[in-house]
């Protein structure tokens, strides 16, 4: 797990982002225990934005988000996450795409 974590940071380091400080475009709704889908995001999110905290709840740091929408497809309908696009111009900026 730690090996994967260091690798993903290296990968994301290649990318260009314009982070909209203080305006996270994705939020996780407070919960006691994460659902299977929400827990899956800690593994499936390609930018590893989702992590379990020490209370076993899922938290998000959306800075490295590539706006793919995987978490939205898995967890928006159930209301577990609130998903928006970053404001115009912000977020990931692909050089190649």
């Amino acid at each position, binding site marked *: 797990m730690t090996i994967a974590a260091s690798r993903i940071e290296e990968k994301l380091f290649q990318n260009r982002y314009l982070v909209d400080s203080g305006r996270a475009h994705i939020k996780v709704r407070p919960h006691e225990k994460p659902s299977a889908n929400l827990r899956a995001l800690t593994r*499936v999110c390609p930018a590893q934005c989702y992590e379990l905290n020490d209370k076993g709840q899922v938290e998000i740091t959306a800075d490295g988000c590539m*706006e793919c929408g995987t978490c939205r497809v898995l967890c928006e309908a159930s209301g577990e996450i609130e998903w928006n696009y970053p404001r115009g111009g912000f977020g990931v900026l692909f050089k190649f795409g």
Partner: protein
Amino acid sequence: MIEEKFDAIVVGAGMSGNAAAYTMASHGLKVLQLERGEYAGSKNVQGAIMYANMLEKIIPDFRDDAPLERHLVEQRLWVMDDTSHTGIHYRSDDFNEAKPNRYTIIRAQFDKWFSRKVREAGATVLCETTVTELIRDAKDKVVGVRTDRTGGEIFADVVVLAEGVSGLLGTRAGLREMPKPKSVALAVKEMHFLPEEVIEQRFGLKAGEGCVIEAVGTISRGMAGLGFVYTNKESISLGIGCLVSDFAATMESPYVLLDALKSHPSIRPLIAGSEVKEYAAHLIPEGGYKAIPQLFGDGWVVVGDAAQLNNAVHREGSNLAMTSGRIAAEAIMQLKSRMRPMTRQNLVLYKIMLDNSFVIKDLKKYKDLPALLHTNSRNFFTTYPQLMSQAAQNFMRVDGTPKIDKEKASTAAFIKARSRWGLLSDAVRLVFAWR
């Protein structure tokens, strides 16, 4: 922010949005295109292969100045297990023609070019602008959009939703459902840079020629998925995608799959010594014909990935996107020229025209394949590739075993893994889904 009223607002500057905006603007319609990225292409991700014919129908002389990487002369399909690949290669000098059929492209660069063409055709293109909401009139007809810019209400006769696979507008407005985990694949990709001559040596290419490899097998760890290696001029696009529902069920991490693919003995030598300059992720619509939503309504049409127009079997996405954008534009132009309002009753013309095109005909042909591959992913993506590899190795390795015994052993392995009935039913279902 903009007082005037437009003939059409196009939301998004990807393949479908640019095709729609270009077609309408170049025929004199007053078009506004809105894009949330810093520039057209900055939010767009594709493999990417671009099909000339579909772009030729929009911009016939695109070869003069479009940023194209390599024209394809060779396609390889690899069935992989952990240490081997069994391949079908097709290569032909016929593809070295005056007007090549397919090219690799780099989307951020290609989309910038396409967007420049859209501006030159006369459309107003506003980037760094996220459309937040559709505006409707008292009769529920879509009459414009709201954006995240101040005072951002803009009106038009029709809104073309070219907002991509994860478009929020249409789903929030209840015009279509959100994509289901089993009808979208998550793909991740890296850009590996190498000198042109090195790429040409490794793939056996002359200057300008390109090769693509598409790979299935144990690389997707039992999930329905596909790996790919595309040669660009001085880079290699390398990635892998699997269904989101399968990712959620297996809890596999896409970047772990990508790194495993890169270290596969068949792939590793192709990218050795490369410099990685970008890591991207994107969803791909995989639901096929059955996942296509309502395509039109009062004051709106939906095109491209947002309409799930993607042929997963042939990995054709951008050409369906470009074509649906062009056809939507042509339908709107026809209605305009006949002074017909952009109502649901009239915009059905877009669907009729699309149904008559290769876009819907191709998707209809494979309407049962997504479900088949989804329910049988472990067989099709792990068991069969492993069996094929074992059979090939059995066939190649000369060790004094009589050939008849080798054949029997290979057949027995297939029957042991899937049973006679399983093999027959997989084959029959595949044939029926394919034809």
